[in-house]
């Protein structure tokens, strides 16, 4: 009966700051994310989106509540949950190729096979010719594509993404969105994708969550059932799309204003 | 990990003024201190034990309490203050001279191509080299007295001071310079009003290195060439088989080292209040 891929049960997270006071980042958030869902999460800055992902990833412990993955409580990080961080976090001492093969290496995939898999992702991310480059020689957008390839190459069961395209230029960003969507349509990996861009959230997600300002909970939960081909340009001019965008944006705006904080854009 | 345990409410304990509670607080404080410095106490305890066990020659390895007593005595009678003053004078004398020359030279190198061309290779070679090797030369030229010691300190300190000032001057944000130039600052005024303050964080890095170097070099020079001072007294005590006295000198110089490190940090906070320091960790 428990068919949820990821189940978040009443998760609360409080940080003790240096002054001794407490900051409640998440206040009793509950969510069920079924298999194959592409969940996108939007919300004002500082509402606990990253924190939620880190708890699902097993990097942080919830103060109260728990997260179940395939019905089993999360106790720590694992290779079943891949993550792409807000900030590029490539291993600077490894070349592009070595970065992409890292996870495969750790899982004991034989060398020849690793190389082959990595090469296909290199092509996918349009990084051919940079196999031997070190991260510092790459632009921000290229680094983020390597980070994406590094995580995808492990073929995790669930992918957690924390504003992965936030630092990319507009063009690269669009290309990456199309690429990610294509990949998801092929594999139907469960994805939890945090963004501050409402349009991106609707375009990519099969379901959008709007979080409240801190302490974060779910404010608005909306399945995206637009029956149109996701060809970007047409899609955005669609009336249903615009209505949806307006509705979600108003929800976000309300939270931003309530908190008196300006969302980054 | 202390996370799971119930937290002791510290404010309550210090708030109640009953003597019993205060005694408990003091005891707890003491226990925490012992727990924290456990390894240090163990170290000195072992030292004391081995020294008193009769396995080793007390000349080679005197009990730490005996050395501490000797230190206390030399502090109480004041006969440590004369050598301490000499060492301080030599270290800080050489350092002060090097400060004036090194910072000026470094800033000039950062601003004028010709000065840079002439001095850069000399500084680049001299900086990583052990300048203390010139000590016999300075003795040859200036004898065994203060001059040679002050000058070897000067020589050792000038390299880090110049190099850091030079890097500081080179890395001054060009928009500061353009802004000042467009307001009519030129030459020396530009150096003093813009380059110097902007390079100050770097210069302070150099100063902190040079401060430690000055004490090390003065001390070594005293050990090698004599003429009074903590280094000389320590070597003399070692040669005269007065090992506790040698340790008393070691304690003194360490305390001096600690004091200067703290003084430099304090000065830095005082002078560079406008500069956002990167936290080390």
């Amino acid at each position: 009966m428990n068919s949820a891929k990821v189940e978040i049960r009443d998760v609360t997270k409080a940080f003790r700051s240096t002054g001794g006071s407490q900051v409640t980042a998440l206040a009793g958030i509950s969510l069920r994310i079924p298999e194959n869902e592409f969940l996108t999460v939007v919300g004002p800055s500082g509402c606990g989106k990253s924190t939620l992902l880190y708890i699902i990833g097993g990097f942080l412990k919830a103060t109260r509540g728990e997260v179940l993955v395939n019905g089993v409580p999360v106790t720590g990080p694992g290779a079943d949950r891949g993550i792409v961080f807000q900030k590029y976090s490539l291993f600077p001492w490894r070349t592009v190729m070595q970065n992409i093969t890292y996870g495969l290496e750790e899982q004991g995939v034989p060398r020849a096979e690793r190389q082959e898999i990595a090469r296909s992702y290199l092509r996918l991310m349009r990084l051919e010719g940079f196999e031997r480059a070190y991260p510092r020689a790459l632009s921000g957008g290229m680094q983020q594509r390597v980070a994406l390839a590094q995580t995808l190459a492990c073929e995790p069961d669930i992918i957690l993404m924390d504003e992965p395209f936030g630092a990319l230029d507009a063009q690269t960003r669009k290309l990456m969105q199309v690429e990610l969507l294509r990949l998801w349509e092929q594999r139907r990996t469960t994805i939890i994708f945090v963004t501050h861009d409402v349009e991106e959230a609707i375009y990519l997600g099969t379901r959008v969550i709007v979080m409240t300002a801190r302490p974060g909970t779910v404010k608005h939960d909306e399945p995206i059932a637009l029956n149109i081909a996701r060809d970007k340009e047409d899609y955005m001019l669609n009336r249903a799309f615009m209505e949806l965008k307006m509705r979600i944006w108003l929800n976000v705006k309300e939270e931003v204003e309530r908190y008196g904080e300006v969302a980054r854009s | 990990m202390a996370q799971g345990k119930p937290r002791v409410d510290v404010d309550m304990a210090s708030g109640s003024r009953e003597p019993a509670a205060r005694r408990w607080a003091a005891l707890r404080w003491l226990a925490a201190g012992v727990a924290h410095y456990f390894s240090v106490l163990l170290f000195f305890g072992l030292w004391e034990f081995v020294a008193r066990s009769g396995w080793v020659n007390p000349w080679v390895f005197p009990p730490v309490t005996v050395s501490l007593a000797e230190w206390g005595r030399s502090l109480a009678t004041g006969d440590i203050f004369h050598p301490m003053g000499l060492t301080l004078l030599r270290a800080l004398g050489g350092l002060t001279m090097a400060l004036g020359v090194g910072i000026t030279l470094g800033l000039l190198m950062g601003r004028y191509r010709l000065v840079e061309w002439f001095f850069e290779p000399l500084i680049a070679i001299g900086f990583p080299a052990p300048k203390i090797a010139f000590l016999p030369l300075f003795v040859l030229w200036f004898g065994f007295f203060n001059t040679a010691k002050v000058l070897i300190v000067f020589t050792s300190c000038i390299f880090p001071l110049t190099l850091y000032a030079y890097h500081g001057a080179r890395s001054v944000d060009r928009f500061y310079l353009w802004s000042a130039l467009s307001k009519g600052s030129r030459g020396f005024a530009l150096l003093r009003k813009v380059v110097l303050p902007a390079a100050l964080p770097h210069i302070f890095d150099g100063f902190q290195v040079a401060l430690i170097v000055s004490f090390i070099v003065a001390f070594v020079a005293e050990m090698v060439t004599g003429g009074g001072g903590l280094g000389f007294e320590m070597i003399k005590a070692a040669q005269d088989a007065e090992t506790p006295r040698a340790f008393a000198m070691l304690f003194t110089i360490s305390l001096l080292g600690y004091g200067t490190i703290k003084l430099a940090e304090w000065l830095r906070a005082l002078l560079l209040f406008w500069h956002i320091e990167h936290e080390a960790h």
Partner: protein
Amino acid sequence: MPALRKIVVRFLPLLLVFGAWEALTAPRLIPEDFIPRFAHVLRALGDLLSSAEFYGHAAASFSRVFIGLTISIIAGVALGIGMAWYRWVKRFCEPLVVLSYPIPKPAIIPVFIIWLGIGDLSKIAVIALGCVVPIIISSYNATLSVDRYLVWSALSKGTSERRLLRKVIFPASLPRIAVAIRVAIAVAFILLVSSEFIAANTGLGYLTFSYGSVGSNDYMFATIFLIVAVGFSADRGYAAVMQRVLAWHEFGEL
């Protein structure tokens, strides 16, 4: 050859200094026993470099630095990382490190001479102890400041906590440890020369002093130059090697 020209232009000031030296000393404007002629220093340099005795002293000095540094690097990196990784190591080592940090390192030379005599052992011990403290502190700080996202990234790709040290923590902290080792090399040479000045019967420091005490100033100058040259080349050689090993990292000058 533009590269050669660049080197000549760069080191021309050095040649100018030497030229001025020779110009002042050759006509005996300055007494020979005060500053020897530069030409004589060069001659002494040639002599030294072709004498077996010199290489004996150089080997003694070099082995002291090498062994002392090796010990301090291995112990320092292990303790520094250990302190960051295991609470009990930190508990034990931190007070000792804090206490020994402000001791000016040459001040331990007389103590080690009393304990270990004037041979190799006291010099090696002084160098090892003098260099280990800064290496411990840097390794500790470097390990603690490893980007947590790198650690998390590795954990989410199946790296176990035990492998983490080798796969992430160590390479990530290597650049800062490398800088600390470079400082340690400079400190090691200072300690070597100082301890050989104070009490020794072999080594380059000893050689310098013994030439000075018999009045062979040209030879004394030559040995000093050689010590400076060795210290300088050790630094540059290390920097060049590290630039290769850490090709992925961007180094500043200094």
